[in-house]
């Protein structure tokens, strides 16, 4: 997909601060929605509940972040309007979050890569000059520590498990690795927020994330794939074909019965 030739995020003009919050919130929301697809389909009842718990944590983070983003946007959109009434190009999640679940191993690979990223982002936000964002991050990091424990634990079990489980997670890792470049590719939004002391610089986070992932991969006897140049632009609103399908399911009710209440 050619990012440069596509128009980016129609709709209201959003400040860098607002867009940064949407990136974090949309990443949590889309990843939470992906994990919710496992409900009723997990390999074991216990994992079903485990993945549902992760999903609910992530959607809880998304609510706090999107509510705040809606206030900064100043167009009267609340968390629900942002979650259920935006189209794919207005979503600013990391491309990795929208990738399909695949088998359990692939879901775990995606989860582990993003958990480790969120751990560093939330840790960096603890010192944010934006106190509200800092307090959201302080709550989220406790949840994320458990998420990483869950996903890294499974990655080690599967990587260092049977021949088949090893092969499957290594393949998933090889395939999903290209999306990790986006996590640390700073653009004008990231630079503006870092300069204002709101967000940590992505360049500082990358080596810590990398070390954390290397440790897990080593224990899991998995091979770290070669780096791939940045070519994915979910955080600029240019998505892979998968996000539309995620949103079609997630937004179906509100789109069909606008304003429906539970």
């Amino acid at each position: 997909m050619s990012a440069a030739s596509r128009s980016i995020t129609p709709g209201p003009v959003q400040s860098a601060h607002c867009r940064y919050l949407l990136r974090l919130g949309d990443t949590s929301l889309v990843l939470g929605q992906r994990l919710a697809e496992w409900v009723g389909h997990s390999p074991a009842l216990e994992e079903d509940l485990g993945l549902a718990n992760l999903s609910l944590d992530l959607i809880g983070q998304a609510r706090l972040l999107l509510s705040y983003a809606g206030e900064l946007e100043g167009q009267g959109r609340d968390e629900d309007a942002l979650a259920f009434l935006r189209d794919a190009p207005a979503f600013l999640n990391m491309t990795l979050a929208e990738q399909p679940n695949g088998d359990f191993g692939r879901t775990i690979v995606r989860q582990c890569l993003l958990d480790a990223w969120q751990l560093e982002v939330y840790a960096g936000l603890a010192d944010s000059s934006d106190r509200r964002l800092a307090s959201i991050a302080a709550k989220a990091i406790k949840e994320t520590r458990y998420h990483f424990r869950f996903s890294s634990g499974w990655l080690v079990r599967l990587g260092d498990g049977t021949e088949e489980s090893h092969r499957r997670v290594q393949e998933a890792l090889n395939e999903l690795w290209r999306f990790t470049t986006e996590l640390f590719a700073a653009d004008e939004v990231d630079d503006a927020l870092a300069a204002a002391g709101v967000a940590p610089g992505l360049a500082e986070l990358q080596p810590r994330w990398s070390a954390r992932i290397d440790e897990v991969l080593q224990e899991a006897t998995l091979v770290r794939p070669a780096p791939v140049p940045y070519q994915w632009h979910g955080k600029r609103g240019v998505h892979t074909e998968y996000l539309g399908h995620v949103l079609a399911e997630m937004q179906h009710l509100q789109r069909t019965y606008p304003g429906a209440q539970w």
Partner: protein
Amino acid sequence: MSNDWPLYEVFIRSRSGLEHKHVGSLHAADAAMAVEHARDVYTRRQEGVSIWVMRSSDIVASDPTDADALFEPARDKVYRHPTFYAIPDEVKNL
């Protein structure tokens, strides 16, 4: 998958100072996974501050057919209950 996993019994301490209570069982590949599963299955509604797990197969249980021999003899020994003592008014917490 869980059919291949052994069964674990789960005990949760609801507050510091209270004892761990049996809350149920679950399947897990090993003890470490059983603790994580117990967290996900049994502490979703803030039920606990501490988790114990043990292999169900490690429990040694009484045989239901021995119930008469084991429990029947206690039935006519009501004097073992501490209800025959008058509690002095000065004793507040008993």
